[in-house]
């Protein structure tokens, strides 16, 4: 029988509180000019959650306007601005940076036993580019706003008189570069800074996901950059590449835009899937099932994501041949995602499930991603797409995958790594309560939208016939429940920072390397890389009630 060795190097330190990355240096400048990946991650987390608040407010405004047909609180132009800004903020400021920037930046080097990313200063630059993008988004709102939809289709985006178009396009351009540099950093770090003993197939699965995401960021985002650059020049100088009146081709814009934006949705979901791959085994106390398949499916998703952009354009006049090919490829891209879902389910089976808050979000992910992903297949069928394109069915589909899956996984990750990042434990009771509000609120908001879509209600519409009112009102009520859930979450998380119980090094019993250093970690993470084992082998971890955490059991001498 294994005994807990109180002198084990992984036992929580006793005595004076250690100096950690939060307390090592003080002052605003030490944060603004930091190159410590952990501080940068915290700054990202705070900024991204603030942007989420702003995007969420716009969402509530949209849903409130749709409480009744016709005018409820604002006129149609203002409504168009609300949904445009909601979409642009949520996608470009929250979801695309989301998990990689706020969580990946913190966890990736520590999971590798490294002291930092390969390029710490580039990491800081990425953050400042994000800030520039956010500032420009606010400037855009102030300068006359945007009503083009987050997709900025021409010719409307080149002809609309709203003054915020060029600022927001420039902002998104900045955000694109932020994304590119983060991806670049992650790829080189994973290639070069793995510790001895950690081959590719001994890495935690989160790193596979972040790596595949980074490949997509490097290859797809520059295409967005050139598209937006051309759009800006088109609008400012009337270049004539996209506008029909000057001899241009508006459909070319759509091809370029979606060539990036489809991989972009996988940039959003793949890190989320990586988080789930970390949470599920830990809270099942069982080794992940099918490690190799999950790892390779991440790469497969990254590759396939580049081949399916045309499924956003089935009704734009593509030839039937091209549409059929895109439809087939869209079906094939669902296969690696399904592989992951089945492996997670197999991991759960026979495990010792513990329904702590991170696990609740992970389980919610599996359900909601199942729904969202499958409805994506309905949309990939050409005959169905003709009827469903541009309706609320699409809105519901992408909210299930973007919010119900990607965002929910990010929330799970935030709760999972919260003790490591802040050194505090939040209240489990309140965590579970907020989850209930979020889960019920989310489904109440978006499930009726599937029905609205199949009954024919178009998206982005300000007005609707009275027979849609009940479903719209259900959706609006759901959105307010969501808001309540998030408010509760904000309160208990902030409370934990100031008054939460101090967290042990390993509160959940994880076997990946970040649970070997203190919570919160010292600035340099490790003095030297810890020994590398199987990242999902929990047999040596024993719960120590004294510290309310897990410690490595000392093996008895042979």
């Amino acid at each position, binding site marked *: 029988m294994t005994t807990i060795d109180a002198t084990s190097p992984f036992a929580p330190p006793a005595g004076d509180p250690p100096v950690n990355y939060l307390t090592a240096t003080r002052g605003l400048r030490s944060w603004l000019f930091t190159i410590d990946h952990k501080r940068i991650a915290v700054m990202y987390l705070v900024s991204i959650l603030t942007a989420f608040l702003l995007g969420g407010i716009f969402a509530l405004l949209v849903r409130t306007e749709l409480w009744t047909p016709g005018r409820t609180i604002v006129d149609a132009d203002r409504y168009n601005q609300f949904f445009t800004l909601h979409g642009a903020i949520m996608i470009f400021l929250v979801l695309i940076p989301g998990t990689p920037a706020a969580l990946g930046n913190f966890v990736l080097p520590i999971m590798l036993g490294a002291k930092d990313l390969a390029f710490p200063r580039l990491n800081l630059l990425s953050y400042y580019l994000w800030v520039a993008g956010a500032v420009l988004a606010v400037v855009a709102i102030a300068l006359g706003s945007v009503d083009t939809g987050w997709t900025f289709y021409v010719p409307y985006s080149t002809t609309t008189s709203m003054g915020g178009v060029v600022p927001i396009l420039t902002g998104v351009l900045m955000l694109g570069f932020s994304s*590119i540099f983060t991806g670049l950093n992650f*790829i080189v770090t994973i*290639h070069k800074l793995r510790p*001895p003993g950690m081959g590719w197939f001994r890495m935690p699965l989160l790193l596979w996901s972040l790596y595949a995401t980074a490949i997509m960021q490097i290859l797809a985002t520059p295409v967005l950059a*050139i598209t937006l650059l051309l759009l800006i020049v088109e609008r400012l100088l009337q*270049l004539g590449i996209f506008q029909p009146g000057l*001899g241009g*081709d508006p459909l070319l814009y759509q091809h370029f835009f979606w060539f990036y934006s489809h991989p972009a949705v996988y940039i959003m979901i793949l890190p989320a899937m990586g988080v789930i791959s970390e949470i599920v085994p830990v809270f099942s106390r069982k080794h992940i099932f099918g490690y190799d398949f999950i790892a390779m499916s991440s790469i497969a998703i990254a590759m396939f994501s580049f081949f399916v952009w045309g499924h956003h354009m089935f009704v734009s006049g593509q030839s039937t041949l091209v549409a059929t090919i895109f439809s087939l490829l869209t079906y094939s891209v669902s296969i690696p995602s399904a592989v992951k879902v089945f492996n997670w389910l197999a991991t759960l089976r026979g495990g010792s499930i513990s329904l702590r808050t991170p696990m609740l979000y992970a389980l919610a992910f599996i359900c909601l991603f199942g729904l969202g992903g499958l409805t994506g297949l309905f949309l990939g069928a050409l005959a169905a797409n003709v009827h469903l394109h541009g309706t609320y069915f699409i809105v519901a589909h992408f909210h299930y995958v973007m919010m119900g899956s990607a965002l929910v996984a990010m929330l799970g990750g935030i709760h999972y790594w919260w003790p490591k990042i802040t050194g505090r434990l939040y209240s489990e009771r309140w965590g579970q309560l907020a989850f209930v509000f979020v889960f019920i609120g989310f489904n109440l908001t978006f499930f009726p939208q599937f029905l609205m879509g199949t009954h024919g209600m178009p998206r982005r519409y300000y007005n609707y016939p009275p027979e849609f009112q009940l479903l719209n009102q259900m959706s609006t009520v759901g959105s307010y429940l969501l808001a309540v859930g998030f408010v509760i979450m904000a309160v208990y998380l902030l409370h934990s920072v100031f008054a939460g119980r101090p967290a042990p090094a390993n509160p959940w019993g994880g076997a990946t390397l970040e649970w070997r250093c203190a919570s919160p970690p010292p600035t340099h993470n490790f003095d030297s890389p810890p*020994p590398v084992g199987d990242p999902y082998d929990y047999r040596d971890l024993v719960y120590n009630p004294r510290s309310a955490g897990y410690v490595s059991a000392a093996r008895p001498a042979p």
Partner: protein
Amino acid sequence: MSTLKPTGQPPAAEHSAHLQHQFDNPRQQFDAAVQGMWLFLATEILLFAGLFCVYAVYRANHPEIFYYAHVYLSKPLGALNTAILLCSSFTMATGVWAAQRRRQKLLAAMLVLTFLGACGFLTVKYAEYKHKWEEGLGWGQHYHPKHIAPGFAAHEAEEHGRSLPSPASAPASAATSAPASAPTATLATDAVSLAFEPRSLGPQGLAPSGRVPAQLNPEQEVRNVQTFFAIYFALTGLHGVHVIAGMAVILWLLARTLLGHFAAGYYTPVELGGLYWHLVDIIWIYLFPLLYLIH
């Protein structure tokens, strides 16, 4: 149970100032930097790939625009620019070679020569742009050519052995010319006038697509020639911006060389700057034939 030591030799004394704490040794740091730079170059290639794609799409759909308009570009000037950039790539590579061997004077000289090459490139580019602007060859609504494509008739006669009708037989095309800016009727060097004039705007829609006919019908109008110039200015403009950025990088490297930063065997920034400059060069190598040479 062991705490593992970093692998490799302890860094040489002169490198340790530059060794960042997340790396085990200078070689690892250098390799990481080079890998990162190549990834950045991949993003640059994809950036330009978008514009090359625009070129490909428009050329496939409207070859007659490219066929007609490419003669406005000056092949000799384009070739001169190509030669300048190739030479500057050579001087840059020599600079990197010098940095590897700690030969700072040679490095500085090569950086200066590369910079001068870039200046030469921009000078030629400026001359070309100025000429285009004066000739009324801009994008979109700025396209109002003063002359028919110079040498186009001679080009036609030479390539396809046909002559174009004289002004006397010009049909009512003169009456239907664009109201906003009627091009002057003067011809560049040809004695023969063309029956058609290019239009500045295309409210009638895009020119008929399809293969260039074996016999270019004199009555057939080549519409939307401004699209060629939109693509030309977008491609060469973006490239020019990258040349200017490259010049800033070279100046920064020169400053660091003069400050002695590369005296002790550390030359990573030079290597990375060299890679960037070669990319700028190679983009031009693709751009030059596509815009200037093929027809």
